[in-house]
């Protein structure tokens, strides 16, 4: 399966839409264990992405598009999720520099680069109650499925399920990174907002690819 530049732009549009629809929900999750701004931050960032992408040259490759998304997020989101998701998209862009089409392997590379970027930036690991708890299981499920010759749309569905499980798991653990870590044990019982926005983005990707 080949993913075109147009498909990538469709995925980004879908993410913008899903974040907008979940703005209140994400903020509500952040009000329980943070500072009640995650939905506002993310929506502000992805609205800016939408505007920015409308102005980039027609012939931009996928790497440039993803890097532009990252650059826009680092300067408009505001909260910790800004440099984290911003770095993720910039690293993903570097991983597919110059490409106008993506293969299955490129999608894996994108996930790998994004995850590594978030880890480099935030120094968190799986189990710290962050976005990594959704993204890492999704990455592993995707990679394993593709290695077993499962087609990309189905492999992405499995990645979404893994992300969802990871997101739900954050409810049972206490935060060791980010603002919620100030609450320690008292953060147990609440789903992490960043793990939720990551799940939503991965789901947006899978939904668009499954409709192609």
């Amino acid at each position, binding site marked *: 399966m080949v993913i075109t530049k147009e498909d990538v732009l469709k995925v980004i549009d879908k993410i913008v839409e899903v974040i907008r629809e979940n703005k209140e929900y994400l903020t509500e999750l952040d009000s329980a264990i943070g500072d009640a701004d995650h939905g506002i931050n993310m929506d502000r960032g992805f609205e800016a992405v939408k505007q920015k992408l409308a102005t980039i040259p027609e012939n931009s490759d996928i790497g440039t598009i993803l890097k532009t998304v990252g650059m826009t997020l680092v300067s*408009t*989101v505001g*909260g910790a999720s800004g440099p*984290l998701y911003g770095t993720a998209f910039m690293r993903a862009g570097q991983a597919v520099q110059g490409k106008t089409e993506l293969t299955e392997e490129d999608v894996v590379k994108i996930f790998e680069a994004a995850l590594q970027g978030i880890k480099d930036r935030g120094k968190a690991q799986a189990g710290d109650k962050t976005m990594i708890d959704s993204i890492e299981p999704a990455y592993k499920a995707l990679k394993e499925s593709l290695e077993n010759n499962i087609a990309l749309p189905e492999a992405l569905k499995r990645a979404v399920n893994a992300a969802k499980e990871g997101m739900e798991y954050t409810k049972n653990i206490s935060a060791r990174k980010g603002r919620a870590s100030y609450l320690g044990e008292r953060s147990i019982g609440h789903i992490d907002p960043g793990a939720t926005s990551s799940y939503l983005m991965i789901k947006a990707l899978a939904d668009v690819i499954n409709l192609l």
Partner: protein
Amino acid sequence: MVGIVLVSHSRKIVEGVFELVNQMTRGKVPIGIAGGTPDGRLGTDAAEIVEQVKKVDRGEGVVVLVDIGSAVMSAQTAVELLGEEYEGKVKIADAPLVEGAVAAAVEASIGSDFEKVLTVAEEAKKMNKL
């Protein structure tokens, strides 16, 4: 002279620290501030930090002071974005924002070099208050 950039989630915090530090050094030290988002919310903007580093750079290095949360990660992102040209010339001090800024600025104002300003800023975290 070594430049200094102050980074916080809150614009008011960096404006306040700037006022305090600038008075002590009588405007001699180039000090930049980055705080809040372009649309006036609490938050940090890596692109603004990049701009401020460039603005206060006099060729002798720039020390960045940060407070908490995204200030640290945005400053690290900014250092990465500044790239090779700034490698080794811009560093984030592992120091408290207010105390570190005062120590760094006073040190810079007497003409100390980059490494010295950075060290003095980082020593501020060991300062006993009582």
